[in-house]
Every structure is written in structure tokens, then in C-alpha cells.
């Protein structure tokens, strides 16, 4: 959509393409990732009776900027025994994977990188791209901690894709679409039309769906938590066991890429959940723009609501991180294979039956 407007405006598809590609990076991802780093430190500080960064800029708001600038200026160590091509390409892969997911995330009804018909599946597919990068990084580092971390990570992310996908399939059964914009529009107007509350359909089925939607939401939240390696599933980078996990050997900008990718990923999965279960960019109470008849206000409102929903889930991820201990690797697999997947299956089955009804 933006691409079409721009290419007709500029008369050149390549320039328009580049602009469209860079727009989300500079408009959304980088500012967001930087803000999330700061938020994480502030949230953790307030949870722990501390103040958090407050010397760099007003109340420390420039802290992540300083971090990133400093990391860019650091020496970039490539140890002599690493597999250099893989070592260098791994952070790029991880960063690309999490960045590419943003292409299909509908921030508003008009601002979206690409209106993919397969948007939902695309996000899931592209974010598991990250595994390849992590595995490469861990393997090529020639460090045992990195290797164990990478192996754990691969096993974990691949396992947790399954419950995530099963839940997504239940949504596809109900809505019949994988296009995220359509999906968001499906849950339009008010919050009782959200998927978590049974979607916009009427009648008994809607109320019957609610408990299963809640179960589905819990499952997908847990498994996406595991997919982005957050506590209590942060065993690939478990600090007390594996030093820093798969990025033990990375320094400088390459580490910054891993670092920012983690936060970008957190937002990507939160955005996915918000879109699938909580109406995406739709406002819960109707639009001021509609009320006052100002049409251009609506996309801004949508952006606001989308950010609020996405950031809320990011905040919950941080909240969990600073509260819970970490699971062990076998327990992690138990949670996935013995609890989440069977429940997701049963959920899928029942929802399917209900939809047929």
C-alpha cells in the first residue's frame, strides 16, 4: 500500500522499495528496541527497589543510545579458532530474521510493510529463521558454552513452534484467513469482538468459544515466550550456567545485533499475539476519529492502540523475567511436549467442532 503510493509518487519502484524497506527499521524497530532496553532496565530497577540508569540524559533516557554507540566503537574480536564466515554471518541472520517479521505486522490499517495473504504463517516462518543464526553462532564460536547454548536453543525453538502453530491454526479455522489485516478488521469496533472473547460472531458459539480461546492464548503466550528465549525459558543464555550462551564469544556490534534482535523479537511475538487475540490495531472502544469525523485521526489511534497492546505484552515478559527462576532443559521439553502440545491439540479439536456447529 505504501509501496504503491510511493512508487506512483516517485515514479521509481526501486527507490520506493528501498524506502519502504527502511521505513519500519528506522521508524519502528530501532527506536522501539532502544526504548525496550531502557524500559527493561527501568522496570527491573523499580521491581528491585533501585533507581536504574539516571545519569545519562534526563532520568537515563539516553542510556541505550550510549550503549549502542559504545558497542559500535568497541573492538570487534574474532578469535583465531572460530569459523569466520559463519561467525560473521550469524548475527546478521538473527537480526534479519527478527527484522523481516516486522514486514507483515499491521501497525495500522494503512501502515504495513506488505499485505501478505499468508502474513500469519510468514511471521512464524521467518522468526524461526533466527534458529539458524543462533545455531551458526554457537557452532562457529568454537566455545563449549556457546555450543551447548546453541543446541539448547535449537531444540527449544523448534519444539515450541508446534504449540504456537497449533494455536494459530485454531484461529485460522475460525476466521478463515491468514492475512493479518483481514484478521484485524475481522475483530473490528469494540473489545467484545476480539478473538479472546470469541470473535464478532453472535450466538451460543461465541460464548462456548471463550474458554478455549483463553486456553489458546495462554498456550501461545507461553510458547512464544520460549521462542524468544525469555525467562523462565532463557536456558540458551542461562547466565549462571552457560556464561552468556550462544553469544559468549561475540563482542561489539555483533553482540549489539543479537541484543537488539532479542528485543525486536519480543515485540514481534507480542504484536502477533495482540493481532491474533486482541484485535490488532483495533481500538477497544471505537474511534474518536469516527466520532468527530476526522478521518486522518483513525490511523494514529490505531497505531496508539497497537503499540499499547504490543508493549503491554512486552512489559509482561519483563515482569516475568524479573520474578521467576529458570527451568531446566528437560523440564522445558516436558512442558512443551507433555502439556502444551496435547492441550493445543485438544483445543484445536474442540474449536474445530464448535466452528462446524
Amino acid at each position, binding site marked *: 500500500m505504501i509501496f504503491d503510493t510511493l512508487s506512483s509518487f516517485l515514479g521509481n519502484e526501486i527507490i520506493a522499495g528501498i524506502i519502504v524497506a527502511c521505513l519500519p527499521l528506522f521508524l519502528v524497530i530501532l527506536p522501539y528496541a532502544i526504548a525496550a532496553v531502557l524500559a527493561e532496565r527501568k522496570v*527491573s530497577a523499580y521491581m*528491585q527497589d533501585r533507581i536504574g540508569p539516571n545519569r545519562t540524559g534526563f532520568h537515563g533516557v539516553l542510556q541505550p543510545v550510549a550503549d549502542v554507540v559504545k558497542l559500535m566503537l568497541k573492538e570487534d574480536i574474532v578469535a583465531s579458532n572460530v569459523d569466520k564466515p559463519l561467525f560473521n554471518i550469524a548475527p546478521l541472520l538473527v537480526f534479519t530474521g527478527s527484522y523481516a517479521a516486522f514486514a507483515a505486522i499491521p501497525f495500522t490499517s494503512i501502515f504495513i510493510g506488505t499485505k501478505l495473504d499468508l502474513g500469519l504463517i510468514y511471521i512464524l516462518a521467518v522468526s524461526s529463521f533466527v534458529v539458524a543464526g543462533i545455531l551458526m553462532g554457537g557452532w562457529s564460536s568454537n566455545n563449549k558454552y556457546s555450543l551447548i547454548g546453541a543446541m539448547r536453543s535449537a531444540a527449544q525453538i523448534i519444539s515450541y513452534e508446534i504449540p504456537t502453530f497449533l494455536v494459530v491454526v485454531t484461529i485460522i479455522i475460525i476466521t478463515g484467513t491468514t492475512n493479518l489485516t483481514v484478521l484485524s478488521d475481522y475483530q473490528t469496533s469494540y473489545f467484545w469482538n476480539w478473538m479472546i472473547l470469541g470473535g464478532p460472531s453472535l450466538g451460543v458459539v461465541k460464548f462456548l468459544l471463550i474458554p478455549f480461546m483463553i486456553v489458546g492464548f495462554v498456550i501461545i503466550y507461553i510458547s512464544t515466550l520460549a521462542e524468544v528465549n525469555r525467562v523462565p525459558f532463557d536456558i540458551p543464555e542461562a*547466565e549462571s550456567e552457560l556464561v552468556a550462551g550462544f553469544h559468549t564469544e561475540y563482542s561489539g556490534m555483533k553482540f549489539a545485533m543479537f541484543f537488539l534482535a532479542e528485543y525486536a523479537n519480543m515485540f514481534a511475538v507480542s504484536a502477533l499475539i495482540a493481532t491474533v487475540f486482541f484485535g490488532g490495531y483495533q481500538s477497544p472502544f471505537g474511534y474518536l476519529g469516527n466520532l468527530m469525523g476526522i478521518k486522518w485521526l483513525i490511523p494514529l489511534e490505531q497505531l496508539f492502540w497497537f503499540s499499547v497492546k504490543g508493549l503491554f505484552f512486552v512489559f509482561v515478559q519483563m515482569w516475568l523475567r524479573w520474578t521467576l*527462576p529458570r527451568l*531446566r532443559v528437560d523440564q522445558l521439553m516436558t512442558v512443551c511436549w507433555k502439556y502444551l502440545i496435547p492441550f493445543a491439540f485438544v483445543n484445536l479439536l474442540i474449536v474445530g467442532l464448535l466452528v462446524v456447529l
Partner: protein
Amino acid sequence: MALKTEEMVLNMGPQHPSTHGVLRLQVELDGELVIGVRPYVGYLHRCFEKHAEAMTYPQVIPYVDRLDYLTAMNNELSYVNACEKLMGIEVPERVQYIRVIMAELNRIASHLIALGTYGLDIGAFTPFLYCFIDRERILSLFEMTCGARMLYNYIWIGGLSHDLHPDFVRLTREFTQQFRPHIVSLNNLLSYNKIFIERTANVGVLPLDVAVNYGITGPMLRASGMEWDLRKNEPYAVYDRFDFDIPVGKGTVGTVGDCWDRYFVRVLEMEQSVNIIEQALNQLPEGDVFSAIPKRVKPPEGTIYARTENPKGELGFFIVSNGSVNPYRVKVRPPSFINLAVIDAISKGCLVADLIAILGSIDIVLGEVDR
């Protein structure tokens, strides 16, 4: 063709976030399963015993502080206790009460660090900081008394370096009252957390007979189910005048002697320490704390082994005196050192993550392991 597999040797430490200092563990791994653990110690060997031979008896006290730097008061009490037995000094009652209060406060501080860092090992970051907040309050009490935060040189042979600050009793009462609810919140946040229990219950079970054979003491032995506490079994100072329980491991959520038991025994011990402090504050007599300090410490010839209950276990001093002002030989029985030796026996067949949990539950301080 059969697939050839090989064990992986993983070196943990001396610089590793959860070896609690400069311990090095050589872990043999089969995938993530631990086949064997070989601890290498001595990276903090500060030659305490050589120093003790070169110093006079009172001069050794600052070095004793630096053995187990988390429990300096208890170390001093133990060493001073041995010296006083050697010289036959009768210590005024007030001094004994103050010593008990200080030792118990320090026990709480030490356990707080043990529990906090244990949470850190399991992956919970926040309890660690909550523990440190309470510890800082104890340290401020010490600082008010003797001016130092960690290493005090407070308990002297025959007396103390300073009498209590006039506000000490009131502030300590305030602390104990506020500390009890904090134990409850620590329990809610960490001890009874489902994930925490999953990680620690039935992990690293230490059977009682193995524990005795390895010479394990302190909370580890009690967690394995034996009611053994030198404060009760061989009372020193004035511990026989207080009413307190010895918490033992009961296997509440798993097996007796697992990591959770070792953790929880420490939590219960903090409650008992608060009890002792409150009783001691109520009974605290008046008097002069400097009256029994000898002008010259020159014990008679002989050997003595005297021991006390430290937060980590039984701390003993074997002193050989040849009748001069310098001890001829001071041998420490370091509880952490002896407790650590058991790690290979109880961590076979567990996962790497369990190994960290077991190591944390042993609660070592490298200053004491290596001396």
C-alpha cells in the same frame, strides 16, 4: 558402523558467574549429563596458616575475619573461643551476650547471601536484591558498633573492641521485628515457587551416612536429617541459655537431603537466629566489656581443638602453643572446604543445570575453602 561418541570436558571457572568465586570445576559431560566433577581449589590460597604462625595471638584476629568473609563475627568468636580456652580466661557475661547477638546477626547476613545467590543460580534475580537490602541493614548495625561493614576485628580475646552503641538495642529490635515478614515474602517469592521447587527438589540428594563419612557439617548435615548443632550439642558462649530449635530437612517437597532441603534449612535457621537475638536482647546484662582483656596474651604450652557452629558448618581451630606470644601452629577446620569435597559424589548423573543448583546449595565461600 556404530556411531562414535566422546565425552566433552567442560571447564567451569575460575571465572564463571556461578562458581561463587574462583573455584574451577572440570566437568565431564555426556551431552548435558554430568559424568564426573573434578574441583580444583586454591585460586584464593592466601596463606592464612603461615600468617598465623608469624603473628601474635591478637594479631591473628583480622586474618581470621578474612577466612570466611561473609561470617567474620562467627570466625572471630570461634578463634577467640579457642584462645580463651587455651588461656583459661573467664569472660564477663555482657561480653558473651553481645558476642552471641553479633554472631547471630552475622549468621542471618551470611544466610541471606547464600539464599540470594542461590536464587541467582536458579535464575531468579530479584530475591537476590531483596536479600541484599536486608543484609545492608544488618551491616549498618555492625557499622554503628565497630565501624566496619564486613571485616570487623570486633571480638577480642577476653572482650570486645567497643561497647554497644546506645541506640543499638532499639535499632536491632526494630530490625528483628521488620525482618520476620521479609522471611515470609522471601518464601512466597522463591521458596514455594513452583519452578524453584521443580529445579531443586530431588536434586543432589545427600544421604546421611555419606554426609557423616565425608565429614559434612552445618546446614548441609541438618538438611540430611541429623539434629546436629554445636550451639546445642556443645554449647559455647551463652548459647545454653536460649530457647531455640534445630531445623532439620524433612523432605517436604522431595527427598530428605535434596537441594531444596538444604535451602530451606537456612531459611528456618534465620528465623531461629531472630529468636535468639530477641532473647539475648531481653536478657542483656550491664557491665564492663573491657575488664577481662589480658594485657599480654601468652598461653601455656599445649594443643587444643575448639570448635563452634558457623553458618557454613563446624569451624574449628587446632592451636599448637609452645608458650610464646606467637601461636606455633594454627590449623583451621574449614567447613566449606570439607563440604565442597562431596560435590563429585552427589552430582553424578545430573544435568549441568543441576550441578549449578547443587554447588549453590553447598554454599561455599572460597576464602575459607582456600584459606
